[in-house]
């Protein structure tokens, strides 16, 4: 039956999780999280140079969440998220060059320069956006799950939302329908403690992971700074969903180091709060120290750093060299052409 679990319940899972982990898997986590971090830092730099405009929401600090979940997802699963989406696309194995070129508004971007930071899609990689309206992605994700069930393709829809988004009426509506119809949907609340400048304690009553209880949806709160804890929780949730039990809620306790978007100086929190997260809880440093404890050479990791550096450099160059879309593109893609 339904149970809402707190972080503690996963301690046992964690115990055997590291022991079972191969060094290669851990290195992959390190690689994937670092790729996201370096990508975002580069995006910030290009933004600072005026090459990226508008809203640009960085994922720095939250890397463990999407990395851990994606690592246990199957190829037929679908993903939808909010405007804070660069990392989800990288995790879905979309090409960093195409993402960066979309950020700079160029023709080789995933949306040919017409979507920007918040709106990219890839049918090939089962990534369904990139949505700018808080809460909308959750309904769309529930619909992705509806289609999985309809087509009976053994897929699960993974719908990411923020802590702020979890208060949207449509989220409650979708919990109800997903539970009512046993839809294969994993609802992931990325609780980074703030919705713009509002601390979650000022916006949200009760516990977010327990919001499904009334509908019979199990929920769990997970240390979202620990990629192994995330992976284990996601694996368990996905097994539960894929066995036909209906939806599941994972509340990932995480933290964004940067402001809400590029122009937010984040005055609503103390420097100490930010630096204690960075210094003590950083997901990448965590994995790095596990690897070093396992006697992996520092130099091995340097190789990974180097490889990522060159991927990022290449995508930044690509994103600057790719031309702007031709002016006649203004008119295309409003409608699928009538036959």
């Amino acid at each position, binding site marked *: 039956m339904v149970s809402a679990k707190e972080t503690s319940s996963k301690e046992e899972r964690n115990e055997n999780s590291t022991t079972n982990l191969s060094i290669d898997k851990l290195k992959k986590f390190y690689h994937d999280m670092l790729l996201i971090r370096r990508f975002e830092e580069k995006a910030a730099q290009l933004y600072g140079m005026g090459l990226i405009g508008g809203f640009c929401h960085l994922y720095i600090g939250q890397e463990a969440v999407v990395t851990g979940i994606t690592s246990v997802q199957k190829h037929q699963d679908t993903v939808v998220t909010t405007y804070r989406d660069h990392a989800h696309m990288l995790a879905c194995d979309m090409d960093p060059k195409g993402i960066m070129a979309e950020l700079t508004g160029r023709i080789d971007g995933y949306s040919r320069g017409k979507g920007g930071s918040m709106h990219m899609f890839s049918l090939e990689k089962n990534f369904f956006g990139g949505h700018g*309206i808080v809460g909308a992605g959750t309904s769309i994700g529930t619909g992705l799950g509806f289609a999985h069930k309809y087509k009976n393709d053994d897929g699960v829809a993974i719908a990411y939302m923020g802590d702020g988004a979890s208060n949207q009426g449509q989220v409650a509506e979708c919990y109800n329908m997903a539970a009512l119809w046993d839809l294969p949907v994993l609802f992931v609340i990325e609780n980074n403690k703030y919705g713009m400048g509002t601390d979650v304690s000022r916006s949200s009553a009760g516990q977010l992971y327990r919001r499904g209880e009334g509908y019979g949806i199990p929920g769990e709160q997970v240390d979202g700074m620990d990629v192994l804890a995330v992976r284990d929780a996601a694996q368990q949730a996905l097994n539960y969903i894929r066995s036909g039990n209906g939806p599941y809620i994972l509340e990932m306790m995480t933290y964004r180091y940067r402001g809400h978007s590029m122009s937010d100086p984040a005055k609503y929190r103390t420097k100490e709060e930010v630096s204690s997260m960075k210094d003590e809880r950083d997901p990448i440093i965590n994995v790095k120290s596990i690897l070093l404890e396992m006697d992996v050479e520092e130099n091995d990791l340097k190789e990974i750093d180097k490889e990522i550096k060159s991927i990022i450099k290449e995508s930044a160059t690509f994103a600057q060299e790719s031309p702007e879309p031709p002016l006649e593109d203004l008119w295309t893609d409003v409608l699928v052409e009538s036959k």
Partner: protein
Amino acid sequence: MPIEILMPALSPTMAEGNLAKWLKSEGDAIESGDVIAEIETDKATMEVEAVDDGVIGKILVPAGTQNVAVNTPIALLLEDGESADSLSDRKSSNKVQPQAYEEANKKEDSPAMSSEQIVGQPTGAVIENRDILYAQGAVIEPPPFDEAAFFTDTKELSVREALRDAMAEEMRADETVYLMGEEVAQYNGAYKVSQGLLDEFGEKRVIDTPITEHGFAGMAVGSAMNGLRPIVEFMTWNFAMQAIDHIINSAAKTLYMAGGKLGCPIVFRGPNGAASRVAAQHSQCFASWYAHVPGLKVIAPWSAADAKGLMKAAIRDPNPVVFLENEMLYGQSFDVPTDENYVIPIGRAKIERTGSDVTITAFSINVGKALKAAEELAKQGIDAEVINLRTLRPLDRWTILESVKKTNRIVSVEEGWPAAGIGAEIAALCCEHVFDYLDAPVTRVCGKDVPMPYAANLEALVLPQSDDIIAAVKKVCYVD
């Protein structure tokens, strides 16, 4: 070569700022992510983080410097193995970027391009896409369709039955088509439009939803993105206001935002406009709301034949379609072609009555009122042409304008409020394209500019009646 660290912009509008403080000094080793300086504008103070690893070779702009232009190099970073010697012969490697920034900024100020400028770009290719031509304001002949040929073999059906038959035929033909909405399954539809569909297609494809328009509209959109072709019934369009975010932001805009990579084939349907005596919250025409939105197609049928042929077209269309029915018409019967291939091209109006003295345009229930008015006018010696618009987006500009060229007078009829309505659009079109043909001002017959009252006598005053149409026609014909 040493890497230049540039003065960053905190926002797209920032052109310069103050370098408040250096947190690192020359010779310090830094790692990507380290905070190296603080900059400030009149609005905010922000930290500058390093994006590369290395050693600060030289600080070019000292702390406390005011008004440092964005993209000015503020320091030089030595990479692994580089020595400070390499600093002397450095060439600026960042020429391209400041320029790009300036260009980007310039563009914001330059006036918006007119459509002519864009159309005139030397693309070499001739635009053949009707939708693009339409968006550019072109008046083009509607898609060819020999409608009369289908009327050789007909059957009398109510609008309600015609809609049901259209959905059933398309559901038989395509497994991915499904119907969802409140009361559509077990109750056979609040207005019995989905009569029998649950029995035939089962609960997998005919789905009763909870009363959660916002959620299920978004869900349907997600399912359309993931390979299905949903038909979403709103019990009435009044309640779709809770879902309008998904209709516009999620359904209509996705294809464009995805650069054409991902579309949303979906039909949103239900009764629109005033029913009878249900007052303000349940009586409103949304035609102009949705007709305003690029990325949507908007249909408002009148006859059962329209309903059948256009519902089939809507379900087959790869784009989101808003299908505005009318409760008062559900029970009315018309001849409907029996041929299952009777699919009316979206964007084609129908001349229901030809005439030479004046053009009357109408859609949905008002087509009937316009035809009644035309009969009465004929008795008085005025020969009116009645155009059933059927599609409101893309509007069949061609048929309207050709008619006006012939009659030189036009009266637009709609149930909605006048402001920014369908009639306002038609008036603008006539001014733009057939101004010289007009012998009288374009005239609108609209719903009165008030919320719908409950009292029978007041309600009748709000809605356009045949008498109102007759009066407007007489006015543009200068007859009294």
